């Protein structure tokens, strides 16, 4: 008797989500199987990768990744245009680092102005991220949301402590929204429920279960993502069927392995290759766990991830 490989089938599927407009719009999600399991069901969309851009020079990025942008990173507009026009970015993720009270404490109005300028300079979809300071983000993202009105951009991140204001702003301006919880699947579900109870359309949501870097908690993120995907598919749990986001670059480019000099640790090999591979391996792990949108920094790491996606023959 010939061997027939067993196939899993599921009751649920994830929501399709589109960000941006026109022919540059990007759609992710809609699959009814685990990541890359097209042989078991339907995987209509590829995961997407966004290039991270900051609203201030990347003074805390290691040389490997900072030098790529050294001629453009003095301003977010030139930086974003470089990513779009020269590096082929399909999505820009603008992080408003300078609004953080410890990083310059730029005002909400200044942040809104930055977003307005970046929006005017690019035609690919935009993700706008606060500085991960819950209180300040609430104030900043409300102003930013007004500027983003009508652009179908993705706004983030709403957390347990600030979601009410940010959800209201996203609703009022018809934006997509990232809901982030801290590596806890039950709290992730709870936050999605609370956001839904405010009247926010669950099909406009992106779940960020919180990222991590290889050898610095990657297995926690991986496991939470995998369990979210299984609850979405096997238990048909609509509160967990939003596409997932992995904010990879910010975690990878601060760990020792992407920073330690070759002179100090010759056994670890080339610092440059080490950093790029660290980001690529972290990112592909999350793709396998079920991430739909990645935010990354180094173009060569992004290139490796895109090649991986193509090799997996998602379509």
């Amino acid at each position, binding site marked *: 008797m010939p061997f027939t490989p067993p196939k899993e089938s599921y009751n649920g599927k994830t929501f399709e989500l589109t960000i941006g407009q026109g022919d540059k719009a990007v759609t992710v999600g809609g699959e009814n199987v685990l990541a890359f399991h097209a042989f078991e069901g339907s995987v209509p969309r590829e995961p997407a990768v966004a290039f991270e851009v900051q609203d201030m020079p990347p003074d805390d990025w290691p040389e490997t990744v900072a030098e790529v942008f050294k001629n453009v990173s003095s301003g977010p507009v030139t930086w974003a245009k470089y990513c779009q026009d020269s590096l082929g970015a399909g999505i820009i993720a603008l992080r408003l680092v300078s609004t953080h009270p410890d990083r310059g404490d730029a005002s909400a109005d200044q942040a809104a102005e930055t977003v307005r300028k970046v929006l005017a300079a690019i035609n690919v979809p935009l993700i706008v991220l606060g500085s991960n300071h819950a209180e300040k983000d609430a104030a900043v993202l409300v102003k930013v949301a007004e500027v983003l009105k009508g652009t179908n951009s993705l706004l983030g991140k709403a957390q347990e402590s600030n979601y009410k204001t940010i959800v209201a702003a996203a609703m009022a301006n018809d934006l997509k929204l990232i809901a982030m919880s801290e590596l806890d699947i039950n709290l992730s*579900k*709870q936050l999605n429920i609370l956001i839904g109870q405010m009247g926010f359309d669950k099909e406009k949501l992106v779940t960020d279960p919180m990222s991590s870097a290889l050898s610095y908690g990657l297995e926690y993120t991986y496991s939470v993502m995998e*369990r979210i995907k299984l*609850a979405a598919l096997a*238990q048909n749990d609509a*509160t967990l069927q939003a596409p997932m986001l992995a904010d990879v670059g910010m975690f990878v480019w601060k760990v020792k392995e992407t920073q330690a000099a070759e002179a100090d640790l010759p056994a670890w090999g080339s610092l440059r290759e080490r950093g790029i591979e660290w980001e690529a391996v972290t990112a592909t792990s999350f793709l396998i766990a079920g991430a739909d949108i990645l935010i990354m920094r180094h173009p060569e790491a992004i290139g490796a991830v895109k090649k991986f996606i193509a090799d997996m023959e998602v379509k």
Partner: protein
Amino acid sequence: MLIIGEKLSIIAKRVREAMLKKDKGPIQEIAKRQWDEGSRMIDANIGPAEDGGEELMEWMVTTIQEVVSAPVCLDTTNYKAIEAGLKVHNNEWGRPLINSTSNDPERFPMLELAAKYNSQIIGLTVGKGGLPADAEERCAIAAEIMARAMEYGVPLEDIYLDPLVLQIATSQDHAMHVIRAIKMFQELNDPPMKTVVGLSNISNGCPKHVRPILNKYYAALLMYNGLTAAIADSHEIGEVSKTIDVITGKTLYAHSYLEM
């Protein structure tokens, strides 16, 4: 667990009057309320309906589905009324459920309808000669129903075996027989057979204030033993159903799980 809302029954005075007058108002209000409380299928019990059964079931199915996006459980012994209901049933939100076939030859034709209309069907494990004595007897009858279903071309996945819940006030032993039967039914096939009970029958004849208590605890025990569905009052057992689903790992826990 799937809750099949039991409130649209001809036994209830308000429902009976609405059925007689073909007054959609009360029927739709009750159907909608059950949906809001968590019923994902609505039972339409029109009794034996010897006169005008076809027209009545047709009216019930369309009246319910006008306001609720759920399948209907067609509950009558009248074969023609079931067929009339199946013909108008909107399968967009799930397939209908025939209530029911059994080991009584008079109920065999219901299987024919299930096959013809691609409907699901309840297999009540009773025969013509009275009530089953214990879980083993219920299983023997279940096996006969399953064999017959295959002859009629009804897939076993489409059958919900019903062990027949009896009143605790008069047949106390059967409360445990039924729980054992639910467990044993699942072992009759791989994948496990689906199961259903008419839950509130356990407390039939008991004082009014005791009834919800009996219904809820019995539901919890049955669910723990793998019950797939219950024809029940969703207002009464919604909380039990969600909680046991969380405890047994069928739903992921979140602080607001009861609100979902």
